[in-house]
């Protein structure tokens, strides 16, 4: 059992035949992910990367029993793609696309409410359960199997954290890239909750960024639930000037509560192991687990 994706996930790629979709589908297949096909409207019936192409997600669900989707559709069409997946009964929808207009995402959040599905992203690197399934764009080799869960708004910073964990002699249970947009399907707290409830995860790394209140919400939830597993936390952007967007659409300091310092203070108060330097994530995890550095 793992969180969100495992060897039983039947994955389809929306935007299968495009350049991004093709490249990453190939990478996922090489990793061993069970990619059962893809969707490109108008190309149904064709074969791509030795797998069937469907016109609709519904066809992929009916004919290939798909239950997980990864979306590489361009920003103008991505909101539609998410809703199509939700409507077709896909359980885990992972949207990689960056740059979806906020106005398009507000109705998506509304649409998927109450449906039996989980949206990860958009603007995220995806989800990986090492050794079982990589449904994302992360370099698979960095993530060795183990019992540390990762929740992160950022792509390369997730790889960095995983690398430090592995170099410290530990490994990853599941890493969830939740995305850096102002509106995302799964906020930090929900992802942390999944890992808290996962019997295969012993401890969690929670990586946030300036902007919004997701990390503070998650920290308060962790405390309210009795700090059941150690959580190492980091917030990127301690040196970011207010009012400037730092790459990610959601990474902007708007007031007093969404600075890195404010979030880190709340995380400390809630009993998280907060690191000031992103170079200390692995070492701090070793300490938090009461282990000796190797």
């Amino acid at each position, binding site marked *: 059992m793992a969180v969100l994706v495992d060897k039983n996930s039947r994955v389809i790629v929306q935007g299968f035949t495009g350049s991004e979709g093709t490249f990453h589908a190939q*990478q996922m297949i090489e990793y061993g992910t069970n990619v059962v096909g893809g969707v490109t409207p108008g190309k149904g019936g064709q074969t791509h990367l030795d797998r069937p192409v469907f016109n609709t997600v519904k066809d992929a669900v009916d004919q290939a029993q798909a239950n997980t989707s990864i979306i590489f559709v361009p*920003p*103008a069409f991505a909101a539609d793609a998410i809703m199509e997946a939700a409507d077709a009964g896909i359980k885990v929808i992972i949207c990689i696309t960056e*740059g*979806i*207009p*906020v*106005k398009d*995402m*507000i109705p998506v*959040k*509304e649409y998927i409410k109450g449906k039996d599905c989980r949206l990860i992203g958009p603007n995220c690197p995806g989800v990986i359960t090492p050794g079982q399934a990589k449904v994302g*764009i*992360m*370099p698979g*080799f*960095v993530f060795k199997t183990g019992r540390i869960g990762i929740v992160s*708004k*950022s*792509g*390369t*910073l*997730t*790889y*960095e954290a995983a*690398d*430090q964990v592995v*170099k410290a002699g530990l490994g990853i249970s599941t890493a969830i890239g939740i995305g*850096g947009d*102002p*509106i995302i399907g799964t906020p930090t707290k929900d992802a942390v909750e999944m890992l808290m409830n996962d019997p295969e995860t012993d401890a969690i790394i929670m990586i946030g*960024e*300036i*902007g*919004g*209140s997701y990390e503070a*919400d998650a920290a308060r939830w962790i405390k309210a639930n009795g700090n059941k597993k150690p959580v190492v936390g*980091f917030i*990127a*952007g*301690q*040196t*970011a*000037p207010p009012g*400037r*967007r*730092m*790459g*990610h*659409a*959601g*990474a902007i300091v708007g*007031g*007093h509560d969404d600075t*890195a310092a404010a979030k880190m203070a709340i995380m400390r108060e809630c009993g998280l192991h907060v690191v*000031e*330097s*992103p*170079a*200390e994530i692995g070492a701090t995890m070793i300490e938090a687990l009461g282990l000796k550095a190797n």
Partner: protein
Amino acid sequence: MNIHEYQAKQVLKSFGVAVQEGIVAETADEAHAAALKLKEQYGSDFVVVKAQIHAGGRGKGTIVGKEQRGVAVAKNADKAKEIAGNILGGTLVTIQTGPKGKFVSKVLVAQDVYYPGANEPKEYYMSVMLDRSQSKNIIVYSTEGGMDIEHVAEHTPELIHKETIDPKVGLQGFQARKIAFNLGLSGEAHKQMVKFVTALYTAYDSSDSAMFEINPVLKTADDKIIAVDGKVSFDDSALYRHPDYAAMRDLAEEDPTEVEAGKHNLNFVKLDGNVGCMVNGAGLAMATMDIIKLSGGEPANFLDVGGSANATTVEAGFRIILQDPNVKAILINIFGGIVRCDRVAQGVVDAYKSIGNIPVPIIVRLQGTNAEQAKKLIDESGLKVYSAIVLKEAADLVQKAVSGTI
């Protein structure tokens, strides 16, 4: 993307939001003519001259070297000309611009809206934005208009109201009425406020905006409700469907190095520090800035080169960072996944050779795919480039570079 007040008012007006009218002027003579025209239209000698820059606090800000505020009332056209002459071509320093201030090339000569009448004029605050915790839009409003809303939020939070818009149905009539009642309005003013709020929300929604802030919203002495100032910020991701708004971008308001970086598809933000950095990924880029600070330096920039760090992007990045004379060292931090580190390393070496003599130490931290080969490539290049694989090593090298020991 931010726009000027005069542009914001054009956008608002196009959706039927009542605004304080005005005419843009680029010279003192144009300001004079504008004031005369406004007198003709509205019958008052008084006008307001407002510097057009992308920053707030203009009314309290001053033009460098002059006893001139960024927003000033003129009692007649001659006075408007004099004020415009003081402001235009000057540098306006406000609480939001920082000590460097901003160059002013346009003023808005606006009608006097604080005229006497049957009732006292009254100012309110109103903004429309995304509430990220709900993933829904909200209208924020207050009776405390015309002042710093952060201050109001801190000291009298009970005076700030929020109305959430249900995305399934949009803004409803009862919500607009509630806002008008909560602002203490009745009669004609109440009716005008309902109209104002409805038009304002339509404008926000239809223009794909990320934020509207109208401070103040004014109830005039004859019970009109108008936007006296307007701050409009568009959602960058949606600009592709609004070419007319995209054309409102004023490059003069942006840092020239940021504009140049944009041309190379580099995500760059200019900062005031002494250590430049070049990173793949926005989160890692922010984290790298934090490492620079923790190592005793100050980040000189944010630069995300994205997923395609090659010789061309690295060279463009070098050139942009090196334009800043304060930069004493450059840290390149790439976590190679899909991107191969040895290719990035070759890119760094090629870019270094192409630029020639780079006067500051370069620290390159390459981790991930082919990191060892990359380190070897750099170590054997004979260039003044220091390589690291682990982030901690890179931090130590930055510390040495800042203290001048490498």
